[in-house]
């Protein structure tokens, strides 16, 4: 650890962290099975971010930085859990519950959850960060520790896979409707990604 932050900086940092809590909870919930687990994860990420505050570069994107901490923590804990408990297969564990926010609500949300489950973890994560979290591709790449092109590709494949899934379902249900929110969403994200450089 480096030199302690000045008191004023520390308290400003803490205030900024506090503002991120709702977003951390939302992201955590997209990774975890349930809300309680997600909140634990968010809390652990907050503590980790606080401890690591000396390594944060002021002026850079704090939100992306803390999300990265949360994500890394999630995967490292999960790896530990795997090592401890080899009977768990990826399939058992890969069941994120983004729908828990509104578990009581409706079949619709359950459908979203199931559709997300059908994606690979990487695609799901990229789609959530960019499509729901409003991050630019650059920010999402930073969070996930991969190249920008990789994120773009994952989002694009996530979308293609979902479309296939939904098409198949639509064929079954024969209930076509016509809106293009995700397309708009993705275009917005792409636009933002183009406009906003991470620094």
């Amino acid at each position, binding site marked *: 650890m480096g030199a*302690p932050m000045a008191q004023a900086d520390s308290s400003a940092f803490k205030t900024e962290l*506090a503002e991120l809590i709702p977003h951390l909870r939302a992201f955590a919930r997209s990774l975890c099975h349930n809300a309680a687990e997600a909140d634990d994860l968010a809390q652990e990420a907050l*503590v980790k971010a606080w401890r690591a505050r000396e390594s944060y570069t002021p002026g850079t994107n704090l939100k992306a930085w803390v999300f990265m901490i949360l994500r890394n923590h999630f995967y490292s804990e999960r790896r530990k859990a795997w090592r401890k408990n080899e009977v768990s297969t990826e399939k058992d564990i890969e069941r994120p519950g983004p729908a828990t926010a509104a578990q009581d609500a409706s079949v619709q949300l359950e459908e979203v959850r199931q559709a997300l489950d059908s994606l690979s973890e990487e695609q799901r994560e990229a789609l959530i960060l960019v499509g729901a979290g409003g991050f630019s591709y650059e920010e999402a790449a930073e969070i996930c520790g991969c190249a920008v092109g990789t994120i773009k590709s994952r989002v694009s494949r996530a979308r293609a896979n*979902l479309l296939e899934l939904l098409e198949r379902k639509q064929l079954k249900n024969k209930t076509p409707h016509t809106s293009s929110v995700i397309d708009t969403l993705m275009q917005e994200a792409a636009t933002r990604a183009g406009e906003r450089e991470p620094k």
Partner: protein
Amino acid sequence: MEPALAENSKAHDTDGHARRSKAEAGDAELGEFGKRLRQIYQDTVDEPIPDEMKSLLDRLDDNSNGRSDGAS
């Protein structure tokens, strides 16, 4: 993080871009899906923060390593 670390490292995804026209053609239902996805996320963002989490930050003091050791 450098955006410039692009391309070479892990960018081995295949078939990422070949689907665009298909995606555009099929955006009907996904539109609704995208809206719900965003809604689910936003619902959590809008939830009140649990007290436990709020007080967590208060317990982190400036000198500590972040453990909630009640040092205040």
